[in-house]
Protein backbone atom coordinates (compact mmCIF):
# COMPACT_ATOMS: atom_id res chain seq x y z
CA UNK A 1 0.00 0.00 0.00
CA UNK A 2 1.31 3.39 -0.98
CA UNK A 3 2.15 5.84 1.79
CA UNK A 4 -0.25 8.75 1.30
CA UNK A 5 0.25 12.32 2.45
CA UNK A 6 -2.28 11.79 5.25
CA UNK A 7 -0.42 8.77 6.58
CA UNK A 8 2.93 10.51 6.27
CA UNK A 9 1.61 13.58 8.03
CA UNK A 10 0.25 11.48 10.89
CA UNK A 11 3.60 9.74 11.21
CA UNK A 12 5.49 13.02 11.25
CA UNK A 13 3.17 14.56 13.82
CA UNK A 14 3.39 11.49 16.06
CA UNK A 15 7.18 11.48 15.84
CA UNK A 16 7.35 15.17 16.74
CA UNK A 17 4.98 14.58 19.64
CA UNK A 18 7.13 11.71 20.88
CA UNK A 19 10.26 13.86 20.61
CA UNK A 20 8.52 16.59 22.59
CA UNK A 21 7.66 14.08 25.30
CA UNK A 22 11.29 12.98 25.41
CA UNK A 23 12.34 16.64 25.55
CA UNK A 24 14.41 16.40 22.38
CA UNK A 25 14.62 18.51 19.25
CA UNK A 26 14.59 16.64 15.98
CA UNK A 27 13.71 16.56 12.30
CA UNK A 28 11.47 13.92 10.75
CA UNK A 29 11.37 12.82 7.12
CA UNK A 30 9.02 10.31 5.51
CA UNK A 31 9.86 9.08 2.02
CA UNK A 32 7.92 6.87 -0.37
CA UNK A 33 9.08 3.61 -1.95
CA UNK A 34 11.27 5.48 -4.44
CA UNK A 35 13.03 7.49 -1.75
CA UNK A 36 11.26 10.73 -2.60
CA UNK A 37 10.24 12.77 0.45
CA UNK A 38 6.54 13.08 1.22
CA UNK A 39 6.99 15.21 4.30
CA UNK A 40 9.93 16.75 6.11
CA UNK A 41 9.34 18.56 9.40
CA UNK A 42 11.97 20.32 11.48
CA UNK A 43 11.03 21.34 15.02
CA UNK A 44 11.69 24.90 16.11
CA UNK A 45 15.27 25.59 17.28
CA UNK A 46 16.57 22.31 15.83
CA UNK A 47 20.00 22.62 14.15
CA UNK A 48 19.38 22.98 10.43
CA UNK A 49 21.54 20.13 9.02
CA UNK A 50 19.26 17.65 10.79
CA UNK A 51 16.60 18.14 8.10
CA UNK A 52 18.95 16.83 5.43
CA UNK A 53 20.28 14.04 7.65
CA UNK A 54 16.75 12.85 8.41
CA UNK A 55 16.04 12.73 4.67
CA UNK A 56 19.26 10.76 4.10
CA UNK A 57 18.35 8.23 6.78
CA UNK A 58 14.86 7.78 5.41
CA UNK A 59 16.26 7.36 1.89
CA UNK A 60 18.73 4.72 3.05
CA UNK A 61 16.06 2.79 4.94
CA UNK A 62 13.57 2.89 2.07
CA UNK A 63 16.06 2.02 -0.66
CA UNK A 64 17.50 -1.05 1.03
CA UNK A 65 14.46 -2.01 3.06
CA UNK A 66 16.44 -2.31 6.24
CA UNK A 67 17.14 -0.02 9.21
CA UNK A 68 19.84 2.44 8.21
CA UNK A 69 22.15 1.18 10.98
CA UNK A 70 22.15 -2.30 9.37
CA UNK A 71 23.85 -0.90 6.27
CA UNK A 72 27.22 -1.18 8.04
CA UNK A 73 26.94 -4.97 7.76
CA UNK A 74 27.31 -4.62 3.99
CA UNK A 75 30.55 -2.69 4.42
CA UNK A 76 32.17 -5.25 6.70
CA UNK A 77 35.55 -6.47 5.28
CA UNK A 78 34.65 -10.10 6.03
CA UNK A 79 31.48 -9.78 4.01
CA UNK A 80 31.28 -10.22 0.21
CA UNK A 81 29.78 -6.77 -0.13
CA UNK A 82 32.91 -4.96 1.03
CA UNK A 83 33.51 -1.74 -0.81
CA UNK A 84 29.88 -0.94 -0.69
CA UNK A 85 30.58 1.99 1.60
CA UNK A 86 32.53 3.77 -1.13
CA UNK A 87 29.61 3.74 -3.54
CA UNK A 88 27.61 6.52 -1.90
CA UNK A 89 25.02 6.45 -4.62
CA UNK A 90 23.09 9.72 -4.79
CA UNK A 91 25.23 11.10 -1.93
CA UNK A 92 22.44 10.05 0.41
CA UNK A 93 23.64 6.70 1.76
CA UNK A 94 24.24 6.90 5.50
CA UNK A 95 24.93 4.23 8.10
CA UNK A 96 23.78 6.37 11.04
CA UNK A 97 21.01 4.78 13.10
CA UNK A 98 17.64 6.54 12.95
CA UNK A 99 16.12 5.41 9.66
CA UNK A 100 13.48 2.67 9.56
CA UNK A 101 11.73 1.12 6.57
CA UNK A 102 7.94 1.20 6.40
CA UNK A 103 6.72 -2.25 5.46
CA UNK A 104 3.42 -3.63 4.32
CA UNK A 105 3.92 -7.34 4.82
CA UNK A 106 7.14 -8.07 2.93
CA UNK A 107 6.88 -5.13 0.62
CA UNK A 108 8.78 -1.96 1.45
CA UNK A 109 6.47 1.01 0.95
CA UNK A 110 8.63 3.79 2.32
CA UNK A 111 10.97 4.92 5.02
CA UNK A 112 11.06 7.24 7.99
CA UNK A 113 14.14 9.04 9.24
CA UNK A 114 14.70 11.01 12.42
CA UNK A 115 17.71 13.09 13.29
CA UNK A 116 18.54 15.32 16.22
CA UNK A 117 18.69 13.07 19.28
CA UNK A 118 21.03 10.18 20.11
CA UNK A 119 20.80 7.18 17.73
CA UNK A 120 18.81 5.08 20.21
CA UNK A 121 16.34 7.88 20.79
CA UNK A 122 16.08 8.49 17.05
CA UNK A 123 15.09 4.86 16.54
CA UNK A 124 12.51 5.08 19.34
CA UNK A 125 11.01 8.20 17.73
CA UNK A 126 10.93 6.41 14.35
CA UNK A 127 9.03 3.52 15.89
CA UNK A 128 6.54 5.92 17.45
CA UNK A 129 6.02 7.39 13.97
CA UNK A 130 5.51 4.01 12.32
CA UNK A 131 3.08 2.96 15.03
CA UNK A 132 0.93 6.00 14.24
CA UNK A 133 0.72 5.21 10.52
CA UNK A 134 -2.68 3.49 10.61
CA UNK A 135 -4.11 5.23 13.66
Amino acid at each position, binding site marked *: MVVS*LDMARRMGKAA*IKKAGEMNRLCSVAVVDD*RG*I*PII*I*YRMNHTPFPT*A*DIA*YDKAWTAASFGMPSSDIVKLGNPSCPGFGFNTENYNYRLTPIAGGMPIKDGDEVTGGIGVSGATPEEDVAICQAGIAAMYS
Partner: protein
Amino acid sequence: MTKEVTMEEGVPWKKITLEVAERMIAAAQRWASNAGVPCCVTIVDKAGAVVALERMDGCGFPGIATNAAIGKAYTAAQACVSNYLLSKMLDPRYIGEIPGSYYIGLMTQLNCRINLIPGGEPIRDDELNVIGGVGCGGPPDAVGEISDMTVCQVAISSLYE
Protein backbone atom coordinates in the same frame (compact mmCIF):
# COMPACT_ATOMS: atom_id res chain seq x y z
CA MET B 1 18.18 35.59 23.35
CA THR B 2 15.52 37.33 21.32
CA LYS B 3 11.96 36.45 22.05
CA GLU B 4 10.40 34.28 19.42
CA VAL B 5 7.31 35.80 17.90
CA THR B 6 4.64 33.70 16.29
CA MET B 7 1.46 34.56 14.48
CA GLU B 8 -0.67 33.16 17.26
CA GLU B 9 0.22 36.11 19.47
CA GLY B 10 -1.22 38.49 16.93
CA VAL B 11 2.02 40.33 16.23
CA PRO B 12 4.22 40.28 13.14
CA TRP B 13 6.33 37.21 12.59
CA LYS B 14 10.11 37.44 12.77
CA LYS B 15 11.08 33.88 12.23
CA ILE B 16 9.86 30.87 10.33
CA THR B 17 8.54 28.41 12.89
CA LEU B 18 7.07 25.02 12.12
CA GLU B 19 3.59 26.34 12.92
CA VAL B 20 3.90 29.24 10.49
CA ALA B 21 5.35 26.93 7.84
CA GLU B 22 2.52 24.44 8.22
CA ARG B 23 -0.05 27.19 7.95
CA MET B 24 1.53 28.43 4.73
CA ILE B 25 1.66 24.92 3.30
CA ALA B 26 -1.97 24.29 4.24
CA ALA B 27 -3.05 27.45 2.41
CA ALA B 28 -1.02 26.52 -0.65
CA GLN B 29 -2.43 23.00 -0.68
CA ARG B 30 -5.98 24.28 -0.37
CA TRP B 31 -5.44 26.46 -3.41
CA ALA B 32 -3.66 23.75 -5.35
CA SER B 33 -6.35 21.17 -4.75
CA ASN B 34 -9.02 23.65 -5.83
CA ALA B 35 -7.03 24.37 -8.98
CA GLY B 36 -6.46 20.66 -9.53
CA VAL B 37 -2.68 20.75 -9.56
CA PRO B 38 -1.20 18.48 -6.88
CA CYS B 39 2.17 19.91 -5.95
CA CYS B 40 5.04 19.83 -3.50
CA VAL B 41 5.54 22.89 -1.29
CA THR B 42 8.67 23.54 0.74
CA ILE B 43 9.30 26.23 3.35
CA VAL B 44 12.90 26.96 4.30
CA ASP B 45 14.36 29.23 6.94
CA LYS B 46 16.91 32.03 6.58
CA ALA B 47 19.74 29.52 6.18
CA GLY B 48 17.96 27.77 3.33
CA ALA B 49 17.35 24.60 5.35
CA VAL B 50 14.00 22.86 5.15
CA VAL B 51 11.55 23.66 7.94
CA ALA B 52 8.58 21.86 6.42
CA LEU B 53 7.94 20.03 3.19
CA GLU B 54 4.78 18.31 2.03
CA ARG B 55 4.10 16.57 -1.24
CA MET B 56 0.47 16.08 -2.19
CA ASP B 57 -0.77 12.73 -3.48
CA GLY B 58 -0.67 12.54 -7.25
CA CYS B 59 1.95 15.24 -7.66
CA GLY B 60 3.35 15.23 -11.19
CA PHE B 61 7.06 14.34 -11.72
CA PRO B 62 7.37 13.53 -7.98
CA GLY B 63 11.13 13.18 -7.87
CA ILE B 64 11.92 16.30 -9.84
CA ALA B 65 9.16 18.34 -8.24
CA THR B 66 10.32 17.58 -4.72
CA ASN B 67 13.96 18.20 -5.48
CA ALA B 68 13.09 21.37 -7.37
CA ALA B 69 10.86 22.65 -4.59
CA ILE B 70 13.72 22.35 -2.12
CA GLY B 71 16.14 23.95 -4.58
CA LYS B 72 13.84 26.82 -5.45
CA ALA B 73 13.15 27.68 -1.83
CA TYR B 74 16.87 27.48 -1.06
CA THR B 75 17.70 29.77 -3.96
CA ALA B 76 15.07 32.33 -3.02
CA ALA B 77 16.28 32.40 0.59
CA GLN B 78 19.93 32.72 -0.41
CA ALA B 79 19.45 35.27 -3.17
CA CYS B 80 16.69 37.22 -1.37
CA VAL B 81 14.83 37.74 -4.63
CA SER B 82 12.15 35.87 -6.49
CA ASN B 83 13.41 33.04 -8.68
CA TYR B 84 11.49 34.59 -11.53
CA LEU B 85 13.77 37.62 -11.49
CA LEU B 86 16.88 35.43 -11.31
CA SER B 87 15.77 33.22 -14.18
CA LYS B 88 15.07 36.28 -16.28
CA MET B 89 18.49 37.75 -15.47
CA LEU B 90 20.27 34.52 -16.28
CA ASP B 91 18.40 33.72 -19.46
CA PRO B 92 21.07 33.70 -22.20
CA ARG B 93 18.65 35.34 -24.63
CA TYR B 94 18.74 38.52 -22.60
CA ILE B 95 22.53 38.92 -22.45
CA GLY B 96 23.41 42.57 -22.72
CA GLU B 97 19.78 43.61 -22.78
CA ILE B 98 18.68 43.78 -19.14
CA PRO B 99 20.58 44.63 -15.94
CA GLY B 100 22.19 41.58 -14.36
CA SER B 101 22.24 39.62 -17.59
CA TYR B 102 26.00 39.04 -17.34
CA TYR B 103 25.58 37.12 -14.08
CA ILE B 104 25.08 33.93 -16.04
CA GLY B 105 27.95 32.27 -14.15
CA LEU B 106 25.76 32.39 -11.08
CA MET B 107 24.34 29.08 -12.27
CA THR B 108 27.15 27.03 -10.80
CA GLN B 109 27.36 28.92 -7.52
CA LEU B 110 26.57 27.34 -4.12
CA ASN B 111 27.74 23.89 -5.25
CA CYS B 112 25.22 23.92 -8.08
CA ARG B 113 22.44 23.74 -5.53
CA ILE B 114 20.62 26.78 -6.83
CA ASN B 115 17.59 26.19 -8.98
CA LEU B 116 16.61 28.86 -11.46
CA ILE B 117 13.16 27.67 -12.45
CA PRO B 118 10.56 30.26 -11.40
CA GLY B 119 8.55 29.10 -8.41
CA GLY B 120 10.58 30.20 -5.40
CA GLU B 121 9.85 33.32 -3.41
CA PRO B 122 11.58 34.84 -0.38
CA ILE B 123 9.49 35.30 2.76
CA ARG B 124 9.87 38.71 4.39
CA ASP B 125 8.93 39.98 7.82
CA ASP B 126 7.25 43.31 8.53
CA GLU B 127 10.56 45.17 8.09
CA LEU B 128 11.16 43.45 4.74
CA ASN B 129 14.11 41.41 6.00
CA VAL B 130 14.25 38.02 4.37
CA ILE B 131 13.45 35.37 6.97
CA GLY B 132 13.02 32.37 4.69
CA GLY B 133 11.83 31.08 1.39
CA VAL B 134 9.03 29.11 -0.15
CA GLY B 135 9.39 26.82 -3.15
CA CYS B 136 6.91 24.86 -5.18
CA GLY B 137 7.15 22.11 -7.75
CA GLY B 138 4.62 20.00 -9.57
CA PRO B 139 2.23 22.26 -11.48
CA PRO B 140 2.67 21.95 -15.24
CA ASP B 141 3.92 25.50 -15.71
CA ALA B 142 6.33 27.72 -13.82
CA VAL B 143 4.83 31.10 -14.68
CA GLY B 144 1.17 31.84 -15.27
CA GLU B 145 -2.24 31.65 -13.75
CA ILE B 146 -1.99 28.09 -12.44
CA SER B 147 1.70 27.64 -11.82
CA ASP B 148 4.51 27.17 -9.34
CA MET B 149 4.74 30.92 -8.81
CA THR B 150 1.06 31.30 -7.99
CA VAL B 151 1.22 28.56 -5.38
CA CYS B 152 4.17 30.34 -3.74
CA GLN B 153 2.31 33.63 -3.78
CA VAL B 154 -0.72 32.01 -2.18
CA ALA B 155 1.50 30.60 0.55
CA ILE B 156 3.02 34.01 1.24
CA SER B 157 -0.27 35.89 1.17
CA SER B 158 -1.62 33.46 3.77
CA LEU B 159 0.77 35.11 6.23
CA TYR B 160 -1.18 38.34 6.00
CA GLU B 161 -4.65 36.89 6.46
